């Protein structure tokens, strides 16, 4: 896509005005990056506090820890929101980076198809896991499960 910069204050002519792609989607994306960013500060800092600082931090993370958290609807909704917002924000950010550096049309298309594929797989998988997760799988050894499973 060749970009030519017009002389300042040059009169607009029919030939220099873009006739396609005149939508506001880039503006919505720009606003979304900022709005989601503000929410993500709360979601991610809360996530990092609960998982890395509270209790015994990273050394306490295992199946029982995750199951204990997702037994509560609060953390299910928290993680779901964080997954979607971070993935849309990150995917849109990487799209910008691809647009900036991949100059050939073919390269750009290949990279973006891979990007959107990764987005879809990760968001669908993550969402399914949060909603279909069983904290007490029937045939698992009890010592790996959260304490409420045996109660």
């Amino acid at each position, binding site marked *: 896509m060749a970009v030519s910069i017009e002389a300042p204050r040059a009169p607009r002519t029919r030939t220099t005005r873009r006739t396609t792609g005149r939508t506001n989607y880039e503006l919505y994306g720009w606003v979304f990056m900022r709005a989601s960013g503000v929410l993500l500060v709360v979601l991610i800092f809360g996530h990092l506090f609960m998982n890395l600082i509270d209790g015994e931090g990273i050394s306490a993370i*295992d199946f029982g820890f995750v199951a204990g958290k997702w037994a509560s609807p609060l953390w299910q909704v928290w993680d779901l929101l964080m997954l979607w917002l971070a993935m849309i924000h990150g995917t849109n950010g990487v799209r910008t*980076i691809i647009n900036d550096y991949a100059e050939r049309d073919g390269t750009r298309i290949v990279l973006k198809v891979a990007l959107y594929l990764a987005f879809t797989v990760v968001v669908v998988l993550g969402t399914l896991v949060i909603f279909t997760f069983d904290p007490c*799988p029937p045939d698992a050894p009890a010592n790996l499960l959260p304490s409420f499973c045996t109660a």
Partner: protein
Amino acid sequence: MPEAPAGTLYRGREGMWSWLAHRVTGFAIFFFLLVHVLDTALVRVSPEAYNAVIGTYKNPVMGLGEAGLVAAVVYHAFNGIRITLIDFWSKGTRYQRVMLWIVIGLFVVTMAGFLPRHLGNVFGGH
């Protein structure tokens, strides 16, 4: 490629370096997030599968990598707020440089609180 116009916030000095760091951290966090969702999805396979993979993360090398990731997120988050203030606050552009120093200050304070705790968990052998 056409030349970038001169005299923008993003050309040279603090504005450019903070932008570059924002881009690099955002890019890195994105790829970590892809892996992070995949490894967490193992809870759906079995407790053993999840614990086995998370167990391989529990060594000093990964512990330091996690510290680096947290550093990237903390910078990206605070600088993201700075970008948003530059865009929406009427005095934002005038104070962009001061705000970068505030971002760096908050970054140092946050990491000073986080690192001893995290590295204690990583190397402390609970």
